[in-house]
């Protein structure tokens, strides 16, 4: 741990904190309909699509619209992949994507997971990447944002039957927030060296006379939104550790900022929309606290070199460089690994599979806690508000009165819905993960406890809609493509539907003014309680399996046991 590394970590945290009120304020304007500079485009769009903006939707209608739109997106992306061999913009002559892989990939991008069972440059045509994946990068992020805005409206409303209009929230998220940010970001990234072309792969003759085929493509336009929309699906197989996908330390800090900034800023949007910014900052503090702890542990773990390699004669001062790039070093690799698993982004700039046992465990814990440490855009905040419901319920039990949050009474219906969203998580991680262990044991690359970690990481990532991987594990086969596909669906929609149901339920409740007996939800006491609830739920559920994976591996590496 050196001063330069710690300084870079501090700069990163400062940038995120500084952007939060700026972007948060702007997004609140967008969702309250005060940003109108694209008015004509927006209205034209609604007209073409037959959306009646005057009609606000009941939570059931909102959910139906969301599901119908997601289904249409899934079908289109599945179709494009299956037909890419006959479609244009395919200079590398990629064949049709096999059905199980196309099924998995279409779910993966629709659910904002961006799990990659494929290798971009060796599987997908430029058209599939651009017209297929990039579109879902935008709209899956916009879907998450729409859901959280609907939930915020539920808490903010005095008493209403409706929670907004899904298509309006979707279009505004895309046009006013994601698209302008991505456009500027893409040009910045090209300036830093990221390709943006439709050339055939370049055939080069290296200095030593060998042939090197260099993959190209419209990289920057896709990478910009993959970071901003907490998507994470790389243009290339190794994602943002590829020098074309992350050429310089400058592109690196910008990409790392993108991957967390909207999720962080939404806490402030939340505060503004419920007319009490302190509520937003309390949630920001709870998320930030867990992020900083995770960063510290991962960094500490990765600055240590592999003891077995040092014993073989390697210089250990650089730390664990396996799977990491020289231009990023340990500090930037660990900031990214922590941030990308905290925010359900899932892009990587180093190979998590090759992290030290505890360094690889922290990203897993970030996801196992439910992707609420900032989390995906929208998804992180609505996931966090689920835990808030549980936390105020527990606080209510302790003081013996009906819990309330932001003036809305939290009753048994809301708590049951929240628990459903919380409990689906172990079903996806442990249930489907166990099915994969039985059905496809050959997919595991590493022996010993690390093999279990690979499977655990995969199903955690899929259920949490993260998308990063312990990539030594082979995901691209019928069994795992299918199981992971269902894990992603569970983790996305069995959370979204209860969240929208809660939104509808709290929207309908009358707002009650705070009294002397109200438990304040903007102070440190609440922040600590909230973090405590998240850690206890996650710990009780997943400690045993973590003990069998990374923790045992850590102890065995200390004893120089190899597999």
């Amino acid at each position, binding site marked *: 741990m050196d001063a330069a590394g710690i300084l870079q970590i501090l700069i990163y945290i400062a940038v995120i904190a500084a952007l939060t009120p700026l972007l948060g304020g702007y997004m609140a304007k967008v969702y309250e309909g005060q940003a109108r500079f694209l008015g004509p485009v927006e209205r034209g769009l609604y007209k073409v*699509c*037959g*959306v009646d903006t005057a009609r606000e939707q009941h939570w059931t209608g909102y959910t139906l*619209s969301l599901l119908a*739109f997601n289904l*249409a997106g899934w079908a289109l992306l599945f179709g494009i992949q299956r037909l890419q061999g006959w479609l244009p913009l395919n200079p590398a002559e990629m064949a049709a994507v096999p059905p199980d892989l196309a099924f998995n990939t279409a779910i993966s991008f629709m659910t904002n997971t961006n799990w990659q069972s494929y*290798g971009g*440059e060796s599987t997908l045509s430029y058209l599939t990447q*651009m*017209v297929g994946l990039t*579109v879902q990068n*935008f709209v899956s992020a916009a879907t998450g944002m729409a859901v959280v805005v609907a939930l915020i409206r539920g808490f903010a409303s005095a008493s209403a039957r409706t929670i907004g209009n899904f298509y309006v929230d979707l*279009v505004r998220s895309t046009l006013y927030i*994601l*698209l302008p940010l991505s456009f500027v970001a*893409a*040009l910045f990234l090209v300036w*830093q*060296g990221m*390709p943006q072309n439709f050339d055939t*792969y*370049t055939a*080069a*003759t*290296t*200095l*030593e006379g060998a042939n*090197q*085929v260099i993959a*190209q493509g419209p990289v920057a*336009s896709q990478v910009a*939104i993959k970071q901003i929309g907490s998507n994470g699906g790389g243009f*290339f197989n*190794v994602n943002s*550790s*590829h020098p074309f996908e992350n050429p310089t*330390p*400058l592109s690196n800090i910008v990409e790392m900022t993108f991957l967390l900034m909207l999720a962080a800023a939404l806490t402030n949007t939340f505060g503004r929309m419920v007319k009490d910014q302190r509520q937003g900052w309390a949630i920001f503090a709870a998320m930030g606290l867990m992020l900083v702890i995770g960063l510290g542990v991962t960094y500490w773990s990765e600055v240590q*070199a*592999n003891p*077995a390699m*040092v014993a073989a*004669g*390697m210089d250990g001062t650089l730390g*664990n460089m*396996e*799977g990491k790039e*020289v231009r*990023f070093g340990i500090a*930037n690799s660990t900031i990214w690994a922590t941030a990308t698993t905290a925010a359900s982004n899932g892009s*990587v700039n*180093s190979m998590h*599979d*090759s992290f030290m*046992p505890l360094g690889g465990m922290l990203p897993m814990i970030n996801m196992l806690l439910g992707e609420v440490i900032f989390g995906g855009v929208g998804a992180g905040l609505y996931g966090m508000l689920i835990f808030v419901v549980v936390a105020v319920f527990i606080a209510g039990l302790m003081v013996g009165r009906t819990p309330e949050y932001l003036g809305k009474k939290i009753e048994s219906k809301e708590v049951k819905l929240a628990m459903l969203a919380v409990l689906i998580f172990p079903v996806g991680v442990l249930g489907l993960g166990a099915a994969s262990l039985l059905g496809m044991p050959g997919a595991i690359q*590493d022996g010993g406890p690390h093999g279990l*970690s690979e499977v655990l990481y995969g199903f955690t990532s899929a259920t949490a809609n993260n998308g990063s991987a312990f990539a030594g594990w082979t995901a691209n086969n019928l069994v795992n493509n299918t199981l992971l596909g269902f894990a992603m669906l569970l983790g996305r929609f069995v959370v979204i539907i209860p969240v929208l149901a809660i939104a509808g339920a709290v929207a309908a409740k009358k707002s009650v003014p705070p009294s002397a007996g109200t438990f304040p939800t903007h102070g440190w006491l609440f922040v600590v309680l909230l973090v405590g609830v998240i850690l206890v739920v996650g710990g009780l559920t997943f400690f045993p399996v973590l003990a069998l994976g990374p923790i045992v591996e850590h102890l*065995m590496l200390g004893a120089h046991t*190899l*597999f």
Partner: protein
Amino acid sequence: MLKELRPALSMIVVMTVVTGIAYPLAVTGIAQSVFAFQAGGSLIEKGGKVIGSELIGQQFTDPGYFWGRPSATSGADPVDPTKTTSVPYNAANSSGSNYGPTSKALIDGAAANIDALRAAHPDQKGPVPADLVTASGSGLDPHITPAAAQWQVKRVAAVRHVPFDDMHKLVAEHTEGRSLGILGEPRVNVLKLNLALDEKWPPNK
């Protein structure tokens, strides 16, 4: 449900046109005219032929060149294209080793790298720089650390019949600091260093 289908279908089509066609094409148009070199992949040409990209590492094994990091990329076996085999620095199939820290294959590979490097640098008695022992994440890392470059100076200088101090100076000139003085890590671009090497002291061919 049927009345949900019309907005759903038309909205995904409209979004595809806006975010999947208009947006990437607009970015491409501007990028190609303002940042043509970068947008094209930062390609280096020599004598009218593309010899690589500034950003993409290459495999170097000649003792007259500085060597880059081990690369875990693979490609089609030239003998039997249905099989894959190790093809270091395959820029059409990026990959790390993805070995976990307790993997025997990882440690054996590292030990083999250390032995090979020691054999090629008999004067270097101390521990071997970590970036020369471990595979990068992308398999295409264009950089090594300044320490790893300096570690190789004596060998390259001897092969090229150049005084040690001159070679040492060339490496120092090609060492980039942290970006803006703060970000990232100090590094040496191996391909650019080797190009400068060829220009200054052409190999005897």
